[in-house]
């Protein structure tokens, strides 16, 4: 504020236009909040999946940063990278990847996230789909087998136990990983086998590196809510809808369909609800729109999980609602004061 030219002048002559209340909310500041909120989940990822998780996160972030750097105007490069949004996208896609994924795929994922998810639409703030999820959808469609081969979670003592499949050469297949395991959602869908809620809550289950620990995701999510960095309506609507819908299904057949708590704590629902569905660029602007958006995501995720061919549906639920966002915004615009509806 020291260098603000307006402040240096005679205060009696100061002219300012509305809004007069200045806020410190800039893009880098908003991004910083999300980085902080993701710290617990990232720490949990490193704890459970060790060196593999670290390497995957590093490669996906560097893929995202490098792509941003290559495709940005020479004059704008420093500015584009300094808002840290590209790195954040890289971290988010990294957290949705399975621990045994070959590193070259993680790099490709980070680079597709930025290239096809953001830059091609015109850069930050102009994309329709969440870049990290778009990158993950690309990877899931491109390498369906590698993207659904999950490693079991380990403990801190196994930090240096690297998945051998991580080190597959670029464009080459990974060797079959002996450490593979089924995710709680996969067990539920294909073998009607539940997982202890405590494991789901703590996170020592198989799954994507950043999605397993409900506790640490909740910590980050609550931080974001308290700092008012995200709209509370979106996660609330997602949780309520998913819980109610899955509870109804649970009542009809308790052996076939999982309980609402299982639905909330398993898979990528928490990660998606707090960190991806709330992306300000790709979610509605109006309060009513946020409710509709959240209800849509919650409904679609349970629908895909229970009746679709895949065990997990958070990715497509959010992407589908991203596509509906412009429409939602259009129909939920508040009435202009004094004008007939």
């Amino acid at each position, binding site marked *: 504020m020291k260098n603000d030219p307006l402040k240096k002048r005679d205060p009696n002559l100061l002219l300012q236009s509305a809004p007069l209340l200045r806020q410190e909310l800039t893009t880098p500041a908003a991004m910083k909040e999300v980085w902080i909120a993701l710290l617990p989940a990232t720490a949990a990822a490193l704890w459970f999946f060790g060196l593999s998780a670290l390497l995957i996160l590093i490669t996906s972030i560097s893929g995202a940063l490098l792509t941003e750097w290559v495709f940005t105007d020479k004059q704008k490069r420093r500015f584009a990278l300094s808002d840290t949004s590209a790195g954040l996208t890289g971290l988010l896609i990294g957290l949705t990847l399975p621990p045994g994924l070959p590193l070259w795929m993680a790099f490709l994922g980070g680079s597709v996230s930025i290239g096809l998810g953001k830059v091609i639409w015109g850069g930050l703030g102009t994309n329709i789909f969440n870049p990290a999820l778009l990158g993950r959808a690309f990877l899931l469609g491109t390498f369906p087998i590698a993207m659904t081969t999950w490693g079991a979670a380990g403990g801190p003592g196994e930090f240096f136990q690297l998945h051998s499949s991580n080190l597959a050469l670029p464009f*080459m297949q990974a060797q079959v990983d002996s450490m593979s395991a089924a995710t709680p959602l996969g067990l539920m869908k294909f073998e009607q086998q539940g997982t202890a809620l405590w494991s789901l809550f703590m996170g020592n289950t198989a799954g994507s590196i950043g999605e397993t620990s409900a506790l640490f995701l909740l910590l980050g999510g609550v931080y974001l809510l308290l700092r008012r960095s995200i709209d509370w309506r979106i996660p609330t609507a997602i949780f309520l809808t998913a819980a109610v819908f899955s509870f109804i299904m649970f009542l009809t057949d308790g052996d076939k369909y999982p309980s609402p708590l299982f639905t909330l704590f398993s898979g990528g629902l928490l990660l998606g609800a707090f960190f991806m569905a709330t992306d300000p660029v790709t979610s509605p602007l109006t309060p009513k729109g946020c409710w509709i958006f959240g209800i849509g995501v919650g409904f679609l995720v349970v629908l895909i999980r229970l009746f679709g061919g895949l065990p997990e549906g958070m990715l497509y639920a959010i992407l589908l609602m991203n596509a509906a966002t412009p429409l939602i915004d259009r129909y939920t615009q508040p009435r202009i004061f004094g004008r007939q509806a």
Partner: protein
Amino acid sequence: MATDVSAYEEMIKGLWRDNPVFVQVLGMCPMLAVTNSAINAVVMGLATFFVLVTSSFLVSSFKQWIPKQVRISLYVIIIATFVTVVDYSLLAMLPAIHKELGAFIPLIVANCMILGRQEAFASKHGVKYAVMDAVGMSAGFMIALFSLGAVREILGVGALFGVDLFSANFEPWVIMILPPGGFLTLGLLLLFFNWFTERRRQFLIKVADVDKIAVGVKDNG
């Protein structure tokens, strides 16, 4: 001599400057649907080549006898006849490829590039020019089909014309041989094509400025 040069130009324009796919963005249906391997793309290109060249030849030969009120129906009859010829010939000679191309051979009838050339060019020009134009356009179409098919087969299967290019360990990019891969690859090729054309235009402008001769530089954008 002058006529020869312009006939040659009618042919060459289809390859790059007026490429039916990269510039006019026509014929997208076969473009996206059958380019999941290079051989499918080439066979589709050849089928289109045959239909377009023969139709253009007939339309320009008979143009003064085709009443303009029923010209579209007549063009479609001519095109449909040749498409049927191609369809049966492929079924007899290359049944395996015919099976893969499936419904898209009969759908050549609806390829807007072919009807478009009849309406826009063959019905207004002499036989020689019409055939040259058809050859150029379908060659341009085939180049586009092949480049899409080659990219998709190399990444999606790790092979070109069925010959493995990498070791057996190659991880195929499944999405590339599925419909989304067609859209992605076509989009990226269009991006590359436009970027290259723009670069070339900028370069030509620069050269013209330097030499102080702005005249004679053709706008390729």
